[in-house]
């Protein structure tokens, strides 16, 4: 059997044979009506169901479109606090994971197919393996993913009753307990902060990717952006300070970005604290006490860090109570403590931050560290290990040698979506259900509970974690829906209106009144504590995934920081969540593998990211193959120059180099977990980099954008707020009408247009995946991208501006500009691309003969060509995801962004059937709907009050390549950065 990945590689030869069916008249299809049509279904019209996607235990509320019973598209749920209507990259792509043909399909025991009943017989009521002496669970251990589900929580509790001696461990490679530990050290109890970015004028992110990482990032991105979209020059704008090593989406929007080694963030925080404390709150600008503090090992006072810290401190002081300091999950508790202290001193707690009780089950307890489990395994104390979800064999810190330990366990059970590395070592493998197939519940970061309801009958069979726990409860299995229903009936105390409550919860996708209440705290503890620690001093420490996070042990041994301390002149190795495959769980998702990294634009793999200067020092060319030697481990992967990356540090994405049974994921990129160490899970010193040679073949870096700069061309415009206010019309050369030989179009009714605000685009790429899902865009594979044939209708161009050493990045979503005077239209010999009466630049696939003349004449190069019959690459299962409203393009035709014309036409027809005009804001494109920051505005320019019409009145409006006279309907709002006055040039 030929795997899809091999397919993707060998696109070419036979694959495209289907292409030649162009002119044949097809045989009669048949019609299969329902025998009994469900009342809510109207064949031909989509239905939306509210559900929730759990990720690392936290829920993100979604609305999922269902076409005649098959889920086809994921959107955000506006009523859900973690989504506010947006859906990120992972949420969007999760729909493809549902249909993934590589998902585990059969329950097996040592390779032999078994039934669920067999499994129950083995572990359920008539369990043969009595766990330990008098069945108290001795030797039974469950390794779960972190969960916040009330139902799961109650079941776990009951399993614990049944088996008091059973062990539990919650593990996820990306979750960190630094934040909670810090809170515990400061407030005496683990608390989790919920930020309110709308109330913050000044935000300082210490290695915190708040706009793109974490369970609340969609919300934070929205709140942040709401304080940033300048309606007019005089409007106010928040200011963002970022100190980080790699370039994150947050760094992209930073007004002041300090590139600093991960190991030095602690010092930066300390210095910040010293300055803020020195110049007591509300101090006047540049007050004396702010002089001192020089940050950075042995760096002189001229180091840019000082300037950054002073500016930040000054701003913070001036905005006490309206500012916010955030520490990233990668940073050790100490940094979080410093952040808490700063927030406390500035009186932000209670204003821009509120603390709530942790949402996850067991959080803050030793069960959230793998160490006890690992010790038990080493001691051979575990007889039955039940692993639910996750992939510990692959993603545990290498020094645990978890795989080895697991082999020694007599009875090994794995329940997960795939037959991955872990499944391969277990004798029981139980397929798990995808969240779109299962009943359940989950809580958002702020505690809000919501239900998970299935959109489709399980495709490949399987069970949920709740079903599995039920097996161990020695109870007769009830179906998941009933289980959930009962649990909530109990929780709400039943009542006659419970059915109403239930229906409402399902409909709205949020359970009212479940948001966690604020816990009143005072920052005093923090202040006192940092003082006792001697202010700015103290060792910077590595963060932690909860490794050796034992509460009694307190903070002092925390993180084993010594190893992370940078030996002078040496290199720091730093790990990061991959913006595409997360921790590796999405590695088998073609959309995500082919999605360009927001900053490096790399597809299909990871690389060693390092600053050009460091690269030069090491003699490593861009794209060279290097070997990373780190604490006994070795890893080969290509190197990539990343302008703006901290010097003397190398960042590597986790989640690649998978070795499981997943065909798409297998062998893509290098597995950075092999270098990860339990005591320094996020970064550590002592890295050596050796150049192996030029990267070849599979090791080559594949990128969708080779160039970093704009070559001095005015493409993505940037200005400082001060500059903008001084000269609001700075884009005037790039808009307005141009002389033209072509006649004007005259319109009546709608005429569509789009405005994209570069000020709030983080480059997160949610829009790109949303577009791919909505418009049936194929995945062309590594070779395809290498040849420059990626099919994305919407791409995000990334340009660095300003100083090469300290660059700024501007992100520019680039899609069909729907030109009024479209260069593509007049060169098409067969009228396959023409102008519509509502201003669209139409592309008619079935008329296209594929001269590619249009692409040559498109200055924006947003047109894509079907070089092969790419539909062949889609498995029959994945075909179920296709949007029935969009043609699946044949081989040899051009395609491009249509402004989601299928949505426009559907809305238009609905409106006209109802006998009314179509509202200017009624149509929402897929990219616009997904965008967390609402950078994309779409609507009719015919309606002067539509959002898009209003956006067109902003002075910073401009069109790309305006001088060509193409008069694009997609226009841009120049990026405005809010530099602090003192440092603004």
């Amino acid at each position, binding site marked *: 059997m030929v795997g899809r990945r091999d397919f993707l590689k060998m696109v070419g030869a036979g694959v495209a044979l289907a292409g030649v069916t162009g002119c044949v008249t097809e045989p009669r299809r048949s019609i299969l009506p329902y025998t009994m049509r469900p009342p809510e279904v109207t064949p031909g019209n989509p239905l939306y169901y509210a559900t929730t996607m759990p990720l690392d235990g936290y829920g993100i509320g979604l609305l999922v479109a269902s076409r005649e019973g098959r889920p086809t598209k994921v959107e955000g749920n506006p009523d859900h606090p973690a989504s506010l209507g947006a859906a990120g990259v992972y949420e969007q792509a999760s729909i493809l994971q549902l249909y993934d043909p590589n998902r585990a399909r059969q329950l097996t025991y040592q390779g032999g197919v078994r039934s669920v009943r067999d499994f129950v017989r083995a572990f359920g009521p008539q369990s043969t393996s009595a766990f330990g002496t008098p069945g108290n669970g001795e030797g039974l251990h469950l390794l779960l993913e972190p969960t916040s589900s009330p139902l799961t929580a109650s079941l776990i509790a009951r399993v614990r009753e049944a088996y008091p001696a059973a062990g539990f461990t919650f593990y996820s490679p990306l979750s960190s307990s630094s934040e909670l530990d810090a809170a515990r050290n400061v407030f005496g109890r683990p608390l989790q902060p919920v930020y309110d970015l709308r109330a913050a004028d000044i935000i300082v992110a210490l290695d915190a990717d708040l706009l793109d990482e974490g369970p609340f990032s969609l919300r934070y991105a929205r709140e942040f952006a709401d304080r940033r979209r300048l309606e007019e020059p005089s409007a106010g704008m928040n200011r963002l300070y970022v100190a980080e090593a790699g370039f994150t989406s947050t760094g992209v929007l930073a007004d002041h970005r300090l590139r600093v080694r991960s190991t030095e963030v602690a010092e930066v925080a300390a210095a910040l604290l010293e300055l803020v404390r020195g110049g007591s709150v509300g101090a006047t600008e540049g007050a004396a006490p702010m002089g001192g503090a020089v940050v950075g090992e042995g760096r002189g006072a001229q180091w840019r860090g000082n300037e950054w810290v002073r500016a930040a401190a000054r701003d913070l002081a001036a905005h006490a109570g309206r500012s916010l300091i955030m520490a990233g999950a990668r940073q050790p508790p100490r940094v979080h403590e410093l952040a808490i202290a700063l927030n406390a001193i500035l009186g932000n707690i209670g204003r821009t931050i509120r603390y709530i009780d942790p949402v996850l089950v067991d959080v803050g307890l030793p069960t959230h560290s793998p160490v006890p489990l690992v010790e038990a395994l080493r001691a051979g104390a575990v007889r039955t290990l039940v692993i639910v979800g996750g992939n510990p064999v692959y993603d545990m810190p290498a020094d645990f040698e978890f795989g080895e330990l697991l082999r020694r366990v007599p009875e090994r059970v794995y329940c997960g979506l795939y037959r991955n590395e872990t499944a391969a070592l277990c004798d029981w493998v139980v397929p798990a259900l995808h969240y779109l197939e299962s009943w359940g519940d989950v809580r958002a970061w702020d505690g809000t509970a919501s239900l998970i309801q299935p959109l489709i009958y399980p495709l490949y069979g399987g069970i949920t974690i709740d079903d599995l726990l039920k097996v161990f409860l020695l109870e007769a299995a009830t179906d998941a829906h009933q289980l959930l229903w009962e649990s909530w009936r109990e929780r709400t105390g039943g009542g006659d209106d419970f059915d109403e409550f239930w229906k409402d919860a399902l409909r709205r996708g949020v359970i009212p009144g479940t948001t966690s209440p604020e816990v009143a705290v005072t920052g005093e503890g923090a202040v006192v504590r940092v003082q006792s620690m001697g202010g700015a001093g103290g060792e910077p420490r590595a963060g932690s995934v909860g490794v050796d996070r034992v509460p009694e042990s307190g903070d002092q041994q925390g993180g084993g920081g010594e190893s992370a301390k940078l030996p002078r002149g040496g290199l720091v190795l730093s790990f990061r969540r991959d913006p595409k495959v997360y921790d590796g769980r999405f590695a088998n998702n073609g959309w995500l593998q082919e999605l360009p990294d927001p900053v490096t634009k790399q597809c299909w793999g990871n690389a060693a990211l390092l600053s050009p200067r460091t690269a030069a020092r090491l003699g490593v060319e861009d794209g060279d193959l290097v070997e990373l030697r780190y604490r006994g481990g070795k890893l080969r992967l290509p190197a990539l120059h990343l302008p703006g990356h901290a010097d003397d540090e190398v960042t590597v994405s986790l989640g690649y180099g998978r070795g499981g049974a997943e065909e798409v994921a297998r062998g893509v990129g290098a597995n950075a977990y092999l270098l990860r160490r339990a005591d320094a899970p996020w970064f550590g010193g002592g890295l050596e980099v050796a150049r192996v040679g030029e990267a070849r073949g599979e090791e080559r870096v594949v990128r969708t954008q080779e160039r970093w700069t704009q070559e001095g061309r005015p493409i993505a415009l940037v200005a400082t707020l001060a500059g903008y206010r001084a000269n609001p019309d700075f884009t005037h050369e790039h808009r307005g009408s141009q002389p033209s030989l072509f006649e004007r179009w005259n319109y009546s009714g709608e005429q569509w247009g789009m405005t994209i605000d570069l000020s709030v685009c983080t480059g997160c790429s949610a829009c790109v995946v949303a577009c791919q899902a909505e418009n049936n865009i194929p995945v062309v594979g590594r070779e395809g991208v290498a040849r*420059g044939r990626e099919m994305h209708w919407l791409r995000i161009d990334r340009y660095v501006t300003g100083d090469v050493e300290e660059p700024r990045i501007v992100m520019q979503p680039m899609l069909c500009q729907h030109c009024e005077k479209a260069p593509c239209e007049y060169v098409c*010999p067969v*009228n396959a691309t023409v102008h519509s009466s509502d201003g669209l630049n139409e592309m008619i696939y079935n*008329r296209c003969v594929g001269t590619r003349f249009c692409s040559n004449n498109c*200055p924006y190069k947003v047109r894509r060509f079907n070089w092969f019959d790419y539909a062949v690459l889609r498995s029959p299962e994945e075909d179920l995801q296709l949007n029935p409203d969009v043609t699946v393009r044949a081989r040899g035709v051009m395609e491009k962004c249509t402004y989601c014309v299928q949505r426009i036409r559907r809305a238009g027809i609905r409106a006209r059937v109802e006998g009314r005009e179509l509202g200017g804001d009624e149509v929402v494109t897929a990219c616009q709907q997904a965008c967390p920051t609402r950078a994309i505005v779409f609507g009719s320019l015919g309606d002067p009050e539509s959002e898009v019409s209003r956006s067109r009145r902003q002075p910073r409006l401009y069109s790309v390549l305006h001088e060509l006279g193409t008069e694009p309907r997609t226009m841009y709002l120049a990026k405005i950065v809010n530099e602090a006055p003192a440092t603004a040039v």
Partner: protein
Amino acid sequence: MVGWHGAPVEELRELEGHATDEELTEQLLAPLWSKSRWWRICFAVSGAGTLLYLVAFTYTVVSGIGVWGNNIPVAWAYGITNFVWWIGIGHAGTFISAFLLLLQQRWRSSVNRVAEAMTIFAVIQAGLFPVLHLGRPWFAYWLIPYPATMAVWPQFRSALPWDFAAISTYFTISLLFWYVGLIPDLATVRDRAPGRVRRVVYGIFALGWRGAGAHWQRYRLVYGILAGLATPLVVSVHSIVSTDFAITQLPGWHSTIFPPYFVAGALYSGFAMVIMLVLPLRAVFRLSNVITTRHLDSLGKMVLAMGWMVIYTYAIETFFAWYSGDPFEVAQYLRARPFGSYALVFWGMVFCNCVVPQALWSRRVRTSPVLLFVVAFLVQVGMWAERFVIIVASLYRDFLPSSWNLYAPTWVDWGLLLGSIGFFSFLFFLFLRYIPFVPIDEVKHLRAELEPRRSG
């Protein structure tokens, strides 16, 4: 055969020696009867080339354009390069026959048939590429205006439907022109062919030519008219082809000088091709008396002249790019081309098209078959490189740096280029074998015209 000694000092003639009509006829018909080994070999080789062509062609149609190296932004590459190159080569034939006929250049007679044949075979090659490079070649007929059930028509603002019209017209006229010119000789062959079969076959194509006065009178009339029709086409065809590029806004394409530029380039490569075909024939069939140094000299001069037109357009193009001050134009002409990833091709083009032909200032070179051949060959290479530079170098560095990307040909691309050359030679060798490649009647007329001056 004429060797290194170059040309005699005295005035060059269109005909050397004092052969009688009879001798000339015999000499020029010889290749049709001879069963030479070299012909079989060459034929086999070109046949192999044709086969390669077929393979690459079929593979492309079956699998899709993806088997080429093309991508976005470089959506056109070898395919269109080959097309423009071949159509260019296809120009000299008609030019020589028609133009020079109207200008009464006597020296054309000995070479014009080879040139015309070359034209037809080249246009065949050229005609195939635009169809092949389509994503869906089976819908190529949509470019033709006809009342379709879809009630949609082609778009006449685009250059491509005009391309289609221009090329098909050009092919038809050239074919007729060539055939009409052939008739008297076909009759000659008919009368002298050994064996009935050949006599009948040639006889059919000779359309019953008896060489009667009436025949000659009509023949001249038709030939003249066709020449008159063909002449403007020489100019129009490549002008229209050039609009494939000129009507776009792409820096490197967006240029008003393209039509004359392309015509000059076409004739340039066309004459070079004639030289490359004529010289071997002359040597192999010992035709130095018919295809004299005078011919070589004139062809050489034509190449030189065309060469300078091309040089001029290069200069103007680059100058205007700089003079326009348009950053995109400047980037294209003054950076991307001379210093970009395809700089080697660019400088190769400059060397072959601008430097090499200067050797033709020397009559010694013009009249030395070997040197002339070398020059012609390099010009041929240069002209292909020129089209590659225009197409690929312009596309791979367009407006937005974000979309910049390189192009690398695959074996299919090479297969089609070499294959088309193979196919061309294949047809040409068939032509040599079955058709008198020097117009016997015209040569005899020429002799008749020259005689009195000789004896006198």
